[in-house]
Each structure stands twice: as structure tokens, then as C-alpha cells.
């Protein structure tokens, strides 16, 4: 047992490789023709991977700098629409578009973050919510976004000659993006920037008095979160092949919020767990028919009662609520 623990602490990358290898198994089974995994399940897996990264990008804002952003759907939409417009009109390659969409979304994130610098708490939330709605309505009316018609026939990405229409191949795009996101984010979180974000989350006044440029870091936080939402939006557009403004309502933003709160904010695994739980729950409750969302809602409320900080939430933080806060646990090293 102790050797295993030792190994975990010293050679963590082995475990990561193992997990990645495990994640590759289901689509590989199908590709290699060993077992016919249903496309339905592979699409669910794609959805989980996609929402995990999207929720992760929201977690950067909500979980690491403690600003409650409700408008992640807007950033997601910017990425998806940028990808759809550039790829259908100008035939730009998907792989070029990925960073481009991220940058476009990051730019909007910067714009949104500017007015929010003077705001806190719920004032900030309503601005992000409003911005998300404004983005959606503009997409609904502008001619470049196809207006109410939406954009159809978004080309599938080039994937070494493989047919990216099939979910077993598209899965890898989401997987690579997810790993890239986790890698970049974990590096950033362990840097000066990440620590600045966490210090702002825990106590903004204290952070400021210690010389953290809170405005700058909060803006940066928004831009970084929006960047990844844009990247994943870019991957989403070809996946569904058709986008229209009604896919980016505030309800979508709330769904993603539910994922990070259920999974746990302020840790990197939280959003992944949340995304998996929400997707699996909503799909496995299908047999309930119209009662599905009633039960799902009850489960959400029950989860908040039983584990307010989420399944894998940061317990050593201000985010862990209720009883946990009253009995602070021993710090187990930095978050993440």
C-alpha cells in the first residue's frame, strides 16, 4: 500500500497516463472492431468530455477567482459562431480556428470583465448573464450569423483522413482538448497567476493589501475562462453540424453551473465529475418520462443538502459551505 502511495506522489504522470489510456478504451474497442460500442454511448462520452471542458472553463472563473459568472453560454456561443462562420464562408481549417475562436471569445471576455471590475457578487453575475443574453440576441438577428436560420452544414474537422462524423473519432478531439485544457490550467494554477486568483477568491481585500493587482488578475481570469469556452465552442459547432441561437440560452449556462456546483468548484476534477454525473443522470432517468426533470431537480437539491461543496469540491476553501466551514479541516496542500 505504501509503495503505491509512494509511487502516486513521485511518479504522478504514470497515473495520468493510465487514466488517459483508460479513457481511450471505449472508442478504440469500436475502431478496432473488438466490441461494437453503441454510437449512442460514444456520443454521450463526447458530450461528457465537451461539457467537462466547458464546465472547467467556468470553474476557472467561479471556482478559482470566486466571481459568480452566469453567462458562460455567451462565451461558448462566440466560439461556436466564429467557427461556423469562418469554416462555412471562408473554408478555414478547424485546427486554425480552435485558437482563433478562443481568442475571439477571450476578447469578448475582456470586454465583459471591464465593467465587472468595480462590481462584486450578484451585481457581477447579472452583468455576465445580461451579456450572454445580448450575445444570443445579436446572433439571432445579425445576418452574418445566419439570423434565425442558423448555420448548417458546418464541415467536420480534418482528422488524419478519418471520418470525424463518427463519434468514436470525434471523441478524440474532445479528449485532446480536455487534456490540453487540464495541462495548461494546472500549470497556470501553480504559477503566480493562479495563486493570485485563489487569493482573490479567499479574501480580496487581503490579497489587495499584499500587493496583488486584483483588477488585472480578475480580468485575466475572465479572459482565460472565456478563451477555453470559445475553444470548446469551436469544437462543438462541427460536432452538432448545425447551430442556431436557441442552443445558447441562459439555461445552458445554468446547466453548466449545475455541473460545477455538483462536481465541486475549485478543483480540476470537480467539473469533470459534475459533467459526467449530470449527463449520466439526465440520460439514465429517461425511463421516468415526463417525471424525469422532477426527479433530477430533487436529486440536485438533495446533493446540495448532503454535500454542499460538491462531490470533489475544494474543502479547504471558502467555497466549502455550511458545516464544513465551521469545522475547518486540516489543509492538505494547495488546491488543485
Amino acid at each position, binding site marked *: 500500500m505504501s509503495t503505491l502511495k509512494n509511487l502516486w506522489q513521485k511518479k504522478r504522470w504514470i497515473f495520468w497516463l493510465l487514466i488517459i489510456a483508460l479513457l481511450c478504451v471505449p472508442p478504440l474497442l469500436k475502431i478496432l472492431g473488438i466490441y461494437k460500442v453503441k*454510437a*449512442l454511448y460514444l456520443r454521450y462520452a463526447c458530450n461528457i468530455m465537451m461539457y467537462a471542458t466547458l464546465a472547467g472553463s467556468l470553474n476557472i472563473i467561479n471556482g478559482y477567482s470566486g466571481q459568480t459568472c452566469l453567462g458562460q453560454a455567451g462565451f461558448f456561443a462566440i466560439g461556436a459562431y466564429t467557427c461556423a462562420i469562418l469554416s462555412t464562408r471562408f473554408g478555414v481549417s478547424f485546427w486554425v480556428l480552435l485558437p482563433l475562436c478562443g481568442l475571439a471569445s477571450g476578447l469578448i471576455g475582456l470586454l465583459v470583465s471591464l465593467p465587472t471590475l468595480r462590481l462584486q457578487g450578484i451585481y457581477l453575475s447579472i452583468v455576465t448573464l445580461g451579456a450572454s443574453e445580448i450575445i444570443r440576441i445579436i446572433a*439571432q438577428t445579425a445576418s452574418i450569423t445566419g439570423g434565425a436560420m442558423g448555420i*448548417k452544414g458546418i464541415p467536420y474537422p480534418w482528422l488524419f483522413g478519418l471520418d470525424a462524423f463518427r*463519434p468514436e473519432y470525434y471523441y478524440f478531439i474532445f479528449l485532446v482538448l480536455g487534456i490540453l485544457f487540464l495541462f495548461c490550467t494546472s500549470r497556470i494554477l501553480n504559477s503566480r497567476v493562479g495563486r493570485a486568483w485563489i487569493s482573490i477568491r479567499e479574501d480580496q481585500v487581503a490579497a489587495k493589501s499584499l500587493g496583488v493587482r486584483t483588477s488585472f488578475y480578475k480580468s485575466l481570469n475572465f479572459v482565460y475562462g472565456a478563451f477555453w469556452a470559445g475553444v470548446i465552442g469551436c469544437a462543438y459547432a462541427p460536432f452538432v453540424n448545425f447551430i*442556431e441561437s436557441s*442552443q445558447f440560452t441562459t439555461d445552458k449556462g445554468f446547466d453548466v453551473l449545475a455541473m460545477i456546483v455538483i462536481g465541486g468548484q475549485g478543483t480540476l476534477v470537480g467539473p469533470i465529475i459534475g459533467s459526467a454525473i449530470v449527463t449520466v443522470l439526465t440520460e439514465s432517468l429517461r425511463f421516468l418520462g*415526463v417525471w424525469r426533470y422532477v426527479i433530477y431537480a430533487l436529486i440536485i437539491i438533495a446533493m446540495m443538502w448532503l454535500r454542499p461543496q460538491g462531490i470533489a469540491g475544494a474543502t479547504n476553501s471558502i467555497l466549502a459551505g455550511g458545516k464544513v466551514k465551521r469545522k475547518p479541516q486540516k489543509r492538505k496542500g494547495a488546491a488543485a
Partner: protein
Amino acid sequence: MKKILSIVIALALCLTAFAALADTIKLGGLAPLTGSYAEYGKGFQIGWDMALEDIGAEGVNGHTFEIEVKDSQGDAVVSSTLATDYAEDDDIYAILGDFTSGACKADAEIVDRYGITLLSPTASAPDYAGMSPFCFSIMGRQDGEAPFLAKYVLKKYLGVTKVAVVRVDSDWGQACFDNFKVQADVEGLEVTEEKYSASENDFSSIITKVKAANPDVLVVMDQGEPVAKIFNAADAAGWDIQHVALGPGTSEQVVGMLTNPDNIIVTSPFFFDPNDAELTAWKERFVERAGFEPTVHPACAYDTMMLIKTAVEKIGDGKVTREAIKDALTGMEMTGVTGRILFGPEGDITRDYMICGTENGKWVVLKGFDFVNE
């Protein structure tokens, strides 16, 4: 005890053997059973169930029918995931649904790749059916109805020149208006346009705005309750003007929501003729199950099931496959609850329209125009 058990097992075996003998054509249904479109999803489900009942247990040519309905929430991602599931299931012969054009467009690529028919009762976007030979819709092309409205209803029947159009800002509304505008220009109508988003509730300011332009007639292009809301807002503002609607058809629901139900003219492919015993019975059966009056949507859903049945009849002794159903549907003609259905080259239909109005809150076909069949 053992004896009874063996008899039961034998019976069960017989039954399964029998079931295997009878060839069941299983269909996949996509409908928004939850969410803001739940009303239509329920209508779909009831429409399909009623059609199954009418086809009866003996089926057609030894084929019986069965439908499995899944909740797509009207969401493109969910709908395409479910469509993939149906498409991969070799037992499913065709997919009926979905409600929203957006969901249907997201499914188009999938059904095209897998080669399975997607027959939507209500997808109204003009560019949907052309996306794949496997995509069909029976909502009716707007290049038929909208010019019909401009040419016959407004110009010839009402004889007006100034028209105010209030329309929903959706793919359907846009297609309607574009087609309408072309014909209106030909007819020399003066058109002012106002748009609203699909979630709009307050129409008083739109009415005030439109009223300031002082038109002869108020035309609304939308499909459900907003039509009633707009006309009610016009009534509430004390605006005495002729109401014309494109989209709701002869919806009993819409009439039930109007403050002044006797001032509305619609173009409609069909209406529940009280003299037609069959249609009246259909309507009553629907109300009994749903608890509310039918719109055109469940009737369309009913017809999609009937279309599949007719397609299977057409295939006759041939082998029923996904491909065969598609081939049978292409260019097929049938008369359903919603009137004559004839698939055009793209897989959608151009309907024949009537001009309907109301008398004492009941729909009637308006007399005094014979020029439609010119």
C-alpha cells in the same frame, strides 16, 4: 406445479414465436415531451398513438407498426444523439419527428449518413428538407402559402393596399415573410414589417407602433399562442382592424384564446369541418386524450404515421427496408387528416390552401372566392 410451469413456458414460447412471425415495423419517435414545447410533444405522442390505433393490430400486408417515443426537449444536441441511437438500431425502420426545425437540421447529416428516413411533421425551415434525400417534412413550403396570402386573401378577397405584418423572428417567420414580400411587391401592396423574438409576451408596444402606420389589415405570421396574444393586444388597444393570420391554420386553441374570435381570417390547408363526421370524431378523440383542443401539429404527426403506413402499402410484397421506405415516400401522394400531401423533389410538400374565417367562434371556409383554382 411442474406441469403448470411447463404449460406457462410453452405458452410463452408460442407467443414469442408468434410475435417473431408477425413482422413488426418499429419506428423511432422524437418529440419534445419536456420543456417549453411540451404541449406539442404531447400532441405528437397522442397523434402517433391515434394513428397506430387506426391502423389496427392486423397492420398492413402482414406488417404491424410500433413506435418508441423519446424526449428530445427540442434541443439540437439531445435530438441528434437520440437520432444516432435510432439510426444505429437495425430494428428501427424510420424516424418520425422532431418538432423544431433546429433539431431536425442537426439530425439531417446523421440520417443521411445512416440512410434512414427522418419524417418531420412540423419542421418548417425552408432549407431543411433539401439537406438530404432522407429528410422529409409535411409542414408545407412557404413559397406556396405566403404568396397565396398576398395574392388571394389580401389583394383579391379583402382588396387592401396597406398591410402591416407582425411576424415571429424565426427561420419559419423569415421564410414566410421573404416569400410574402416578393408576391406583395408584384401585387403592389404596401408592407410594413415588425419582428419579435419567440419568447415575447408583451405586444402592446408593437401594436401601438404598427397602428401608427395606419394600415388596412393586420397580418400575423406565427404558429401558436402569440397569434392570439397579438390580436388580443390589438383588441385591447381598441383598434378596429381586420385580423389575418398565416401559420396557426384553423387552430381551435387559438380561437379559444381570442377576445374577439369572430374577426380572423387565416389561410389553412385543412379545417375540422363539423359536417365531416370522420374529422369531428378525430378531433373529439384527441380532446379526450389530451384534455385540450388540437392544433395543426398533432394532426400532422398523425399523418406522418399514416404516410409510413401508405409507404409500406406501396412497397407491397417487396422487402421493407429503410431504403425502400425512403424510395416509397419520395414523390408519394396521400390524402391525410391535414389534406393532400404530395412530396416535391426536395422532400417537402406544397399544400393547397383554403381561406377560412370564423363564425360564432367556429371555423368556416369563407365563401366568395373561386379564384384559387384559376
